[in-house]
């Protein structure tokens, strides 16, 4: 193998970091919901896909840049998350028999429904945003090329993470943590756990919505786009530790880096091999994940 230049190393490291931050934010939404109520949202990838389509169509109709559309799509996704909780999940939590399986099948069924509906409504074509300030623009940092859409996406993801961490330090964040520790005991202090759960779903969907909005700037959207990202998100959450936000951030970046290095050293089509190899090792050595608590 020929020697690898320092520029190549930096280029690979930067690509991994940029993609890893997006993986991290997608995983953060999943982790938040799981940490709060022990429900794995199998429709998480489909929420990402919906956010990407929402951005695509709003961009198409109004010609607004995804960066401008960010709060709009996040708000739409928040409302959708709340609606999914109120309409489906709260009912699944209320069943008296086989609750765990019911929760799995409800979100799994929702995923299939959303994907099928998207196929029907939008067709199977791959689409990308037509107008964007950052489209096809690249910054040259002393020979290291940084695509601006990716750079902006990862910067937005970092800001979103900062927001989530800041939220955790507020009184509402404490209420989230209390609900997570003992969902029944919060009634003893007058907290409506259903409201907290609904907001948790809203926040989880908004987080994936932010990731989707930025992703559509450099990634084609199609009804099946969520599946790959969802798979990576599940691995990220398990690797970082279920329900741990910092774990999602670190694991997301780690997976982005491993993927970039694997693509460089082996070949791009094998880029996920390294990620799954590390995941299997962590599962064997530390099943609760890097930051998970027993």
């Amino acid at each position: 193998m020929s020697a690898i230049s320092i520029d190549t190393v930096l280029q690979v490291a930067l690509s991994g970091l940029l993609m890893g931050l997006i993986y991290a934010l997608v995983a953060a939404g999943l982790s938040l919901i799981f940490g709060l109520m022990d429900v794995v949202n199998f429709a998480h990838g489909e929420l990402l896909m919906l956010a990407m389509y929402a951005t695509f169509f709003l961009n198409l109709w109004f010609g607004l840049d995804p960066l401008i559309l960010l709060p709009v799509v996040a708000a739409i996704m928040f409302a959708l998350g709340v609606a999914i909780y109120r309409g489906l999940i709260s009912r699944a939590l209320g069943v008296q028999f086989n609750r765990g399986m019911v929760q799995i099948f409800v979100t799994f069924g929702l995923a299939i429904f959303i994907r099928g509906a998207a196929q029907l409504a939008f067709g199977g074509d791959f689409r990308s945003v037509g107008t964007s300030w950052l489209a096809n623009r690249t910054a040259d940092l002393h020979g290291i090329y940084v695509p601006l859409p990716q750079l902006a996406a990862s910067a937005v993801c970092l800001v979103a993470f900062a927001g989530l961490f800041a939220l955790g330090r507020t009184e509402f964040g404490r209420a989230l943590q209390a609900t997570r520790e003992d969902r029944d005991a919060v009634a003893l202090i007058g907290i409506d756990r259903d409201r907290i759960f609904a907001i948790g779903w809203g926040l989880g969907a908004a987080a994936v919505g932010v990731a989707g909005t930025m992703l559509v700037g450099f990634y084609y959207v199609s009804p099946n786009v969520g599946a790959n990202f969802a798979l990576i998100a599940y691995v990220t959450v398990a690797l970082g530790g279920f329900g741990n936000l910092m774990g999602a951030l670190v694991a997301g970046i780690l997976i982005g880096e491993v993927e970039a290095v694997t693509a460089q050293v082996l070949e791009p089509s094998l880029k996920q091999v390294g990620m799954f190899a590390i995941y299997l090792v962590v599962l064997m050595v530390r099943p609760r994940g890097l930051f998970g608590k027993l």
Partner: protein
Amino acid sequence: MPSDGKIGGKSDGTLGGRSDGTLGGRSDGGKAGEILRLDNVSASYRGLKALQGVSLAVEAGEIVAVVGANGAGKSTLLRTIAGQVAMEGTVMFDGQSLARVPPHQVTRRGVGLVPEGRRLFPRLSVEDNLRLGAYTRRGPDRFAPLAQVFELFPRLGERLSQRAETLSGGEQQMLAIGRALMTQPRLLMLDEPSQGIAPKLVDDILAAVGRIRDLGVTILLVEQRLAESLELANRAYVLQTGRVVMSGPAADIARDDGVRRAYLGL
């Protein structure tokens, strides 16, 4: 009902505080001073009839003890009032029915419960546990009861940054009572507050229960230590297999031969 205490019936955000200036005040024409009334309440717990036709009344400002053997339905009684157990019959608090009111709303209406096992938030600090007690309250004085909680339980003030799970059993009980007081209840229900606690701290906690009552919060007490709880209480109800078999002034119950034989081993 004391008129000089800081807790109860105040508009300054202190414990039990209500803007109408009455402690356990009624909003309709129920019996004067009556804050809680149960009529013919039945409830099942885990498939068993835990309460059968229970009727009781609690006057504002008193301590009412509920005594009985294990499995008599004492805890189910408190959980039923708190809205955690489906029931038949009537539960009136402050003149309003609590039927089908969800548990968090029961708390917001002024009924605090310190459950068996305490149910603290173990990984949150003592301060966070206490402050969360005031989560649903609004206004600048929402944290005012903190001062009174620290007065009742000075140990909590010394352990503010400690995680709840690192406290001793007695301290956890103090924290659970403190957290409930932060919701500014007019009725505080305590389920076995002495359970799993060192004897020295049991005395402190029972003494604190008396002081909470003196500050104007009505108390419904379920306690295994019969002699101490009857000494503390104004009135008592004896439960047996889900039914009230005796009620009256606590001193009379404590003197009853049947009760002394059955529960005090005398």
